[in-house]
C-alpha cells in the first residue's frame, strides 16, 4: 500500500487556508486592530484604547443607525419569512400557465437593486407618479414628502426590500414544500383537519428548516442594509441622518482621503457582533428543535 508524505494533506488544504487567511481572517483581525487606533487612509494611527467604542455610545448618528437597522430586521424577518411561504403555496399548484406566474414573481430578484431603487425614487418623489396619482384622485391636497420624512423613507425602503425578496425566498419554499409528504396532508384530512389546521400542523413543521434558514438570511441582510436606503435618500440617510443604516454610517465616516478609519472599523466590529447575535439565536432555536425531535 502506498502511503503519502505527512505534509500532503497540508498541501491539499493550503490554497483554501491561504484564501481564508488572506481574504477572511486577516481583514477581520486588521479591522479589530484598527478599531483601537485613530488611523486615517494615508496615516498609520496610534493606539487609542476604547476611545472609538466610547465615542460610538455617545454618537447620536450611531443611535439612529442602530434603530434603523434593528427596525429593518424586526419588520423584514417576519414579512420575508411568512409572505414568500404564502406565495409559494399559491403558485405550488400545477395548473396551466403557473410557470408564468412563478417567473413574474421572480422578476424583481433579477433586476438590479440600484436600478429598482432609482425607479422607486422617481415614483415616491414629491412630483412622482404616486403623489400625482393621489392628487389627481383628490386624495391629497399637497404632495407627501415620502423621501424626506424619517418614517416614510424607512417604510419605502422596507417595502422595496420585501417586494424584491419575495420571489427569491418563494423559490426556496417551493423546494422545501416539495419535501412535505402528500400522505401527511391526506392523513390530517382524514383526521378532520381543515386547510388552516393543516397549514399550521403539517406545512409549517415541514418547512421549518427553510423558515429558519430564511429568517437567518433576512436578519443578516436587514442588519447590513445599505443600497435601498442609500439610493432612496440619495446617500444622505435622510434629514438629520435619521435613516442611516449602520453600513451607511460606516461609509460616511470612513470614506475618502480623510476617512476616519479607526472609528469606521469600530463601527464594523459592532455591526459584526450585532449580525452574529440573531444568527446565534436562530442556531439555538434550531438546536432546540433537534433536541426535542
Amino acid at each position, binding site marked *: 500500500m502506498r502511503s503519502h508524505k*505527512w505534509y500532503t494533506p497540508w498541501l491539499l488544504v493550503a490554497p483554501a487556508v491561504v484564501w481564508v487567511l488572506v481574504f477572511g481572517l486577516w481583514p477581520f483581525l486588521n479591522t479589530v486592530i484598527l478599531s483601537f487606533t485613530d488611523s486615517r487612509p494615508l496615516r*498609520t494611527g496610534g493606539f487609542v484604547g476604547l476611545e472609538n467604542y466610547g465615542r460610538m455610545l455617545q454618537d447620536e448618528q450611531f443611535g439612529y443607525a442602530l434603530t434603523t437597522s434593528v427596525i429593518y430586521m424586526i419588520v423584514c424577518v417576519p414579512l420575508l419569512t411568512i409572505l414568500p411561504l404564502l406565495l409559494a403555496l399559491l403558485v405550488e399548484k400545477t395548473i396551466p400557465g403557473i410557470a408564468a406566474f412563478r417567473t413574474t414573481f421572480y422578476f424583481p430578484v433579477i433586476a438590479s437593486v440600484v436600478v429598482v431603487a432609482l425607479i422607486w425614487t422617481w415614483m415616491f418623489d414629491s412630483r412622482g407618479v404616486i403623489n400625482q396619482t393621489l392628487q389627481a384622485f383628490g386624495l391629497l391636497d399637497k404632495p407627501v414628502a415620502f423621501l424626506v420624512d424619517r418614517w416614510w423613507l424607512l417604510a419605502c425602503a422596507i417595502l422595496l426590500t420585501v417586494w424584491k425578496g419575495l420571489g427569491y425566498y418563494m423559490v426556496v419554499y417551493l423546494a422545501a414544500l416539495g419535501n412535505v409528504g402528500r400522505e401527511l396532508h391526506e392523513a390530517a384530512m382524514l383526521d378532520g383537519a381543515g386547510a388552516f389546521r393543516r397549514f399550521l400542523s403539517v406545512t409549517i413543521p415541514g418547512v421549518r428548516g427553510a423558515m429558519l434558514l430564511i429568517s437567518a438570511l433576512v436578519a443578516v441582510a436587514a442588519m447590513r442594509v445599505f443600497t435601498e436606503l442609500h439610493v432612496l*435618500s440619495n446617500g*444622505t440617510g435622510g*434629514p*438629520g441622518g435619521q435613516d442611516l443604516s449602520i453600513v451607511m454610517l460606516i461609509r*460616511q465616516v470612513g470614506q475618502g*482621503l480623510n476617512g476616519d478609519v479607526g472609528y469606521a472599523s469600530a463601527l464594523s466590529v459592532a455591526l459584526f457582533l450585532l449580525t452574529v447575535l440573531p444568527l446565534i439565536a436562530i442556531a439555538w432555536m434550531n438546536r432546540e428543535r433537534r433536541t426535542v425531535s
Partner: protein
Amino acid sequence: MKLTTRLATATAVLAVGALALTGCTGAGPAAGSDGPIDTSGELSGTIKFQSWSLKNEKFSPYFEDLIAAFEEEHPDVTVEWLDQPGDGYQDKVLSQANSNSLPDVVNLPPDIAYPLVAAGKLVDLAAADSSLEDQYVPGAWEAYTYPGIDGTYGLPWYLGTDLGWWNGAALQQYGADTSALPTTNEELLSLAEQVGEASGGQMPLLSSMPTIDLFASSGIEVMNDDGEFVFNTDEAAAIVDQFASAYQAGALPAEALTGDYGGNADMFKQGKVAYTTAGSGFAGDLQRDAPSIRESVIATPRIGDAPLFVQGVSVSNDSKNKAAALAFAEYLTNTENQVAFAQLALGFVPGTVDGSADVGSLSESVTDPLQKEAMEIVSESMKTARILIPFQWTSAMKTYMDQQLALALKGEVGSKEALDKVVEYANDNLVEY
C-alpha cells in the same frame, strides 16, 4: 516529536504569512523630496500623466498634440496619458497612493492634494525649482501651501469661477422683474419665496440647501486663524432661517433636503428651476441641451464673493523619474499651453501670471453673444474670486451639514442649534497630520 515538528512548521508558516500580510496594511509615509530637481539636462524614461475626466472628443486631440510636442522636445521621454472618470476620483487616488502607484504627474485640486502632501506623497515644487513661484498666479500658488507644512505641492493649471443664470421667461411668468435681479443672497431668497408661492411650488428658484461656500461668499468667517470652524454665527443662522422660510413656501423641492436636486444646472436645463450657478461654458450646454430656455436666459455675476476653483498638477514622490515628471508638469502648465487649453475649456482662466494677464483676449474669437458676455463676466469676477471652501472641509463634514440643515429647513430644529452641531462635528473631526 513528530507532532512537535508539525506544530513548529505550521506555526512558522503562519508567522511568516502573518508578517507578510502585515505588509499589506497600506503604504507608510514616503521620504520627502525637498531638494532641487534639475530638468535642464538630457531627460529620459517613461512617465505617467493622469488627468481627471478630460479624455473625450473635445480635449483628447489637445493632449495628444501636447504630449507629442513634449516627446519631440525630449526624444528619450515617453509620456503615458491616463484619464480617470469624474466619479470616485478621490478613492482612485487613495488606492494609487496606498499601493505606491501614484502616476508621476497627477491632476489634483488643493483639497485632494492635502492628505497626500501630509503623507509625504508629493514633491515640494517650490524646493524643486525656486523659479516657479513667480510664474503662477499668487492666489492659486498659495492654494497648494498648507499650514504647518513647508513647501508648495501643485502647479496651478486652470482656474475658474461661476456666474448666475436665470430663466427669464419663467421669472416673468410668475411676476418677477428680470430687469432688477437679486444681487444679494437675501434678495435671492426673497425672490425665491415670491416665485415659489406664485407658482405653487412648480417653479423653484433654488434646488439645494445652504452650503459652506454660501456662508463664505456672504462674508461670514468660516474658519478662524487657529484653524477652527466658526461659521455658527447669527448671520449664518439668519441665512438658514431664510432658506427654511423659502422651503415652507415651496421655493425648494422637498427632495432638495436629501441633495437629490444637487444637480441644479441639470434641473435648470430641464426647466424645473429658474436659477442656477454654473461656469461660462454653460452657455454652450444650453445651446446643445435646452435651446428654448436659452432664448430668455440671463447671465449675471455670482451673488456674493465669487468662488475660485483651482485645478493643478503635482509630481509624485514615488516617481522614479522626477526630472522628466517635473519637466512635463511645467510644460503642461506653461502659459502657451494653458492659454491653448483655456481657449478650449471656455470660461476657465490660465493659472500663470502671463496667461491670466489678458483673460479678455480669450473671448475675442467667440462669436456667440451669450457666451461672450458670460466669459466677460467671468473675467471680471476672477479679479476678486477667492477660495471659499477650506481644504480641511471633508466630504463627511459636508454630509453631516446637509443632514442637520435638512432638519432645520423642515423646522424640526432651530437653525442656530443645527449650525452649532455642524461646527462641533467639524472641529471634532478635523484631520491633523
